[in-house]
C-alpha cells in the first residue's frame, strides 16, 4: 500500500464520520487535479471553480456510499464528470479554454520556481507560451479523449482508475489515450518534434 492509499484509508473514514478537517485534507490533496480536469472540460474558469465546489460538496454528502477509500480519486472524478455532463445537457458548459487565462490563473508558483532557477527572460516566455499552446491544443481534442489525457498525464491517474471514473473498460481508456495523444501530437506540431541532433 503506497503513501497515497494509506492516507486515503485514514482520511476517508474520518471524513465519512463527519470530520471536516479530514475532508479538508482530502480537498487539499485532490482539488488541483479536479479543478484542472474541470478547467479542461468547461468554458469558464468561474464555472470550473463552481463545479469544483459542487464536486466536493456532493462527495461530502455521498461519502457513506464510497466502500473503498482507495477509490476516492476515481470516484471524485466520476462525480466531476457527471456534473460536466449535467452542465452540457443544460447547455451552459462548452469548452473554450482561453490559454492566456489558464496561464494567468496559476498562483505563480511555477513562475517563482523558474525565476529561482534564474533562467533568461526568453526561457520564461517560451515556457509560458508552450503551456498555453498545450492548453489550446487540448481544446481541439475530442472530449472523451481530452478527459482521459488530462486524468492520465496531468492528474496522474492509472488506466484502471480512469476506467472506473469513466465507467468504461480499461481497453477503451487505452484507446482514448492513444487517439488523444495522436491528436495532440498533430496539434502541437513542431513543439513536440525533436530538433536536429536531439534524437
Amino acid at each position: 500500500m503506497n503513501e497515497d492509499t494509506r492516507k486515503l484509508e485514514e482520511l476517508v473514514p474520518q471524513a465519512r464520520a463527519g470530520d471536516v478537517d479530514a475532508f479538508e485534507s482530502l480537498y487539499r490533496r485532490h482539488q488541483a487535479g479536479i479543478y484542472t480536469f474541470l478547467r479542461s472540460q468547461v468554458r469558464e474558469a468561474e464555472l470550473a471553480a463552481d463545479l469544483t465546489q459542487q464536486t466536493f460538496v456532493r462527495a461530502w454528502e455521498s461519502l457513506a456510499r464510497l466502500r473503498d477509500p482507495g477509490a476516492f480519486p476515481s470516484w471524485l472524478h466520476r462525480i466531476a464528470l457527471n456534473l460536466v455532463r449535467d452542465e452540457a445537457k443544460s447547455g451552459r458548459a462548452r469548452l473554450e479554454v482561453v490559454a492566456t487565462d489558464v496561464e494567468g490563473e496559476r498562483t505563480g508558483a511555477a513562475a517563482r520556481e523558474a525565476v529561482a532557477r534564474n533562467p533568461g527572460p526568453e526561457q520564461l516566455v517560451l515556457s509560458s507560451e508552450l503551456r498555453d499552446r498545450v492548453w489550446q491544443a487540448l481544446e481541439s481534442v475530442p472530449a472523451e479523449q481530452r478527459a482521459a489525457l488530462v486524468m492520465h498525464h496531468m492528474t496522474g491517474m492509472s488506466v484502471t482508475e480512469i476506467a472506473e471514473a469513466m465507467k468504461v473498460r480499461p481497453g477503451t481508456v487505452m484507446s482514448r489515450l492513444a487517439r488523444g495523444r495522436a491528436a495532440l501530437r498533430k496539434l502541437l506540431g513542431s513543439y513536440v518534434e525533436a530538433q536536429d541532433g536531439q534524437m
Partner: protein
Amino acid sequence: MAKCEWVQTALPDYVEGSLRGRAKARAEAHLRHCAACRAEMVALERAGELLKESGVIPAPSRVWGSIQAEITRKETAPAIRGLRALWRGAVAVAAVAAMLIVVWAVRPHQAPLPAPAVQQVAIDEEFQSTLEGHLSSVWVTPLADEAALGLQMAALGEEG
C-alpha cells in the same frame, strides 16, 4: 518489414503500451531501422510529457471556504429543522391547553353527575327498605294511646 504508414498508425497504441504480440514485435522491428518512425514515436511521447509538465492548476483559494460554508449549512440544517418542528409542536400543545382551560372556565354549572348505576341501585334498595318498614309499622301498630284518645275526643266533639 512493416511499412511506415502501418507503423505510424500503430504507434500511439505502441506508446501507450497497448500494442501486443506480433503487432508489437513487428513495430519494434521497424523502429530499429526507421529514423522517421522513431522520430514520430518521440514526438508522441513528448506530447504526453508536455501535458504532464503543464501540471495541474490549483483551484481558486475561495473554493474551500465556499465548500466549508455549504457543508456546514447542510449539516446544521437538519438540526434547525428539528428545532423548528419541536417549536411548532410546543406551540400546538400550548394552544390546545389554553383552549381547554377557557372551555373549563366558561362551562355552565351543572348538577353533579349521577352516581354510577350500581350505587344508585343500592341507595334505592335501602330507601325502599326503610319506607316499607315504616309503612308496615304504621299499618300493624295501633296509634299511641294519647293519640288515639285525642282522635276519639275530637270525633265526639264534632258529634256533640
